[in-house]
């Protein structure tokens, strides 16, 4: 792999707080190595801003290895940037060439209000989980783990859905700001496993209700979410969610 350096123009959304209006600021950055990660490039810019006595750009990040779900930049019109199955923190500068202009925005959705610059409030996701995204088993009540056999295919499918990192890119990519991919991943993970069976109906009904309450839009199946999801959560989960929801609705005992 050949390494190279580049100069770039960045247009970054700056917003002091949720109460103030935001706007784009333009920055020139030079001598960026193709080996840097995207966030390391922002680090370089921030170091400079601090030296110049300016406010550095606030952004969420923590693990920087694509698993915590904290990082969340909308880069040139696409959540997490141009690479497939990738988070912002894993994007590396070899995706760009000298002279490129890069526009960086926060996730845009009414249910994810901006806190500062590129940082948004995603606590709505936690509240959706609180509505039923779990199996009600207290510590100490479990039987031997191998007492229950689970087909490998089912276990693998549950795992694939459980791989969601709760980043919110699906919402940011959707023109309706729908949270269906996120929700369907959790519902699928638990519905596919025998442990999830007892609460299967109430779970899906309560979680959907909470999602609506949080103000996320409805799903018109554009599949934009799947295209940007860093964990390649499939839209077939949304189909499963719809099925679960209908069955639960029809058979619910009030």
């Amino acid at each position, binding site marked *: 792999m050949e390494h190279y350096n580049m100069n770039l123009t960045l247009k970054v959304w700056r917003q002091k707080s949720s109460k103030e209006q935001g706007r784009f600021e333009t920055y020139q950055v030079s001598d960026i190595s193709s080996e840097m990660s995207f966030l390391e490039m922002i680090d370089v810019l921030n170091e400079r801003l601090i030296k110049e006595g300016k406010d550095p750009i606030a952004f969420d990040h923590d693990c920087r*290895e694509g698993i915590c779900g904290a990082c969340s930049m909308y880069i040139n019109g696409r959540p997490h940037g141009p690479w497939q199955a990738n988070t912002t923190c894993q994007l590396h500068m070899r995706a760009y060439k000298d002279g490129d202009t890069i526009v960086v925005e926060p996730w845009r959705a009414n249910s994810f209000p901006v806190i500062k610059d590129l940082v948004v409030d995603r606590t709505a996701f936690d509240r959706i989980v609180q509505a039923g995204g*779990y199996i009600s088993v207290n510590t100490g*009540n479990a039987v031997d783990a191998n007492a229950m056999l689970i*087909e490998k295919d089912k*276990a693998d499918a*549950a795992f694939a859905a459980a791989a969601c990192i709760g980043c919110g890119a699906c919402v940011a990519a959707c023109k309706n700001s729908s949270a269906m991919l996120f929700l369907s991943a959790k519902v699928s993970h638990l519905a596919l496993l025998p442990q999830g069976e007892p609460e299967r109906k109430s779970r899906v009904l309560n979680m959907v209700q909470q999602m609506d309450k949080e103000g996320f839009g409805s799903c018109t199946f554009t599949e934009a979410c799947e295209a940007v999801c860093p964990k390649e959560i499939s839209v077939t989960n949304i189909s499963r969610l719809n099925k679960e929801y209908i069955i639960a609705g029809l058979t619910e005992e009030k």
Partner: protein
Amino acid sequence: MLNSKIPAGQLDLKWTDYKGHCKLVNPANKRKLEVIIVGTGLAGASAAASLGELGYKVKAFCFQDSPRRAHSIAAQGGINAAKNYQNDGDSVFRLFYDTIKGGDYRAREANVHRLAEVSANIIDQCVAQGVPLAREYGGLLSNRSFGGTQVQRTFYAAGQTGQQLLIGAYQALERQVALGNVTMYTRHEMLDVVLIKDKDKAGNEVGEAKCRGIVVRNLITGELERHFGHAVLLCSGGYGNVFYLSTNAMGSNVTAAWKAHRKGAYFGNPCYTQIHPTCIPVSGDHQSKLTLMSESLRNDGRIWVPKKQGDNRKPNEIPEEERDYYLERRYPAFGNLVPRDVASRAAKERCDAGYGVGSSKQAVYLDYANAIERYGKIECGKLGISNPSAEVIRKHGLDVVKEKYGNLFDMYEKITGENPYEVPMRIYPAVHYTMGGLWVDYELMTTVPGLYALGEANFSDHGANRLGASALMQGLADGYFVIPYTIGNYLADEISTKAISLDHPEFVKTEKDVRDRIEKLMNIKGSQSVESFHKRLGKIMWDKCGMARNEKGLQEAIVEIQQLKKEFWSDVRIPGGISEMNPELDKANRVADFIELGELMCKDALNRKESCGGHFREESQTDEGEAARNDAQFSYVSAWEFKGESDWQLHPEALNFEVAKPTQRSYK
């Protein structure tokens, strides 16, 4: 003086005995008792969920925007448990023994035995919660092996074990939030603990001060808040980021533990650091963190360097007989599966001797060509393909390796731009885990009454070196199965303690101290960024208190750190204001604490004139260059008491080995 409160009696009966006799709190009283939990990683989330279920009123805090993002999420390889599902001779005793030996005989037998005992319950609990651990076609759970052991006892979920376990604990936690038993505070950072003495009937203060609360900063508004708890649990993770570059998340820090230390909690074995052998090497000065390639890769990958120094050929051009599989050569019994400290030092030895690879020469190869061929042949055999071509073998082998390690290989490719299915990965050791932490007794209580430490934040179970897949086990053991019992033993005597007013002078004073320090930091208005200080601290630590340590280097490091501290407090520049979201201020608070911790780590390393586990003193090695312990002088836990700036007193806790008699560790 130090009382580790290890129950009397036979090793394998201690925990059962303890549980049978510890004090209980009745349900009506639990509702009146408040518990503060700092941290929502595996340790904190499991504790919060379990204590909430029991009926305590719990408040949990984390600095991320969601409890699900705690650094435990990043654990890849797996979690150990003595289930013996593979029928390969595993048992509670063997897990206990491996852990004690792996820790180079510097951990407490009683704690480690308890850990091994509850390990099996953890897997049961997680599966009941719906954690999708890997399974075989028959529907049973699957296992893999990890370094330092000869049995297969590691449970996993592809390369995302920590994520899946944490999501399980997070969901249990959110369930308790929904039920009103836990109140969750995200984007809050604990900046101090509040200690208050009890009063007798006449209103006179009596006894030792107890931990009764914390002061936190709301990271969105910058406001300081006071919170009361009858007990406080620190589950704030490890301090590997003292080295600046490590596999830890960017926000991982020592602040919570350090503030507790300054208020009287002893710090145990601060110098014990784990340097993980298989990480992606540094690519340049811009590097902000290092990425681990899971130890599970050593199951199937082979590690080598060229036999010729400074060999610049591409790896695929170097013929088999000119490769040095140095781990297999030096340690035939364990080969590529020696414990981490041994593997890391062996890599450093080769690179220092001029055999390193890649442009920096600070790397060795981790090669999968062999495994791909081996698995390919097995698959062809299963499928009944006779005389398969090399191409067919390779295709089937690739499928197997992809299934087992695909996400790790993808991660490698994203970072380096190289395809590890085609060329061997380049790896180098990196700081990964800290065995040291707050000193705790058998009940996980620090030397401050009512203040507990769980998970990586305590020093307890791994001695001088942690075996792979044992941190997840310990975090969940502490949170699900230990603290629910041991905290009752303390809180049973607190049922008549009323919630203390947040206007109590100690709350007011502690908040003022925190505010003063923040204002002091902001008013320095110097010229150097927080990051630049952190980088310099990291370099001192890596060079002089890293993989190999010696007296001269450590003495120099202490002086350099003291100078760095002065410079930091006179020239750091923090932009922005106090009453707003200010990530630079958050970082400054943390780096200031890392600097102080760095000094203590060097002091501890200097004091320990022996090599053990991850602590390698160059003055103390065998003729073959292996770590040489000195049991006669150093068979103790170093518990350090903070006396004042740059001033600590050592309280050794003697280690007694009644069952696992110390021997020189050998993996040959």
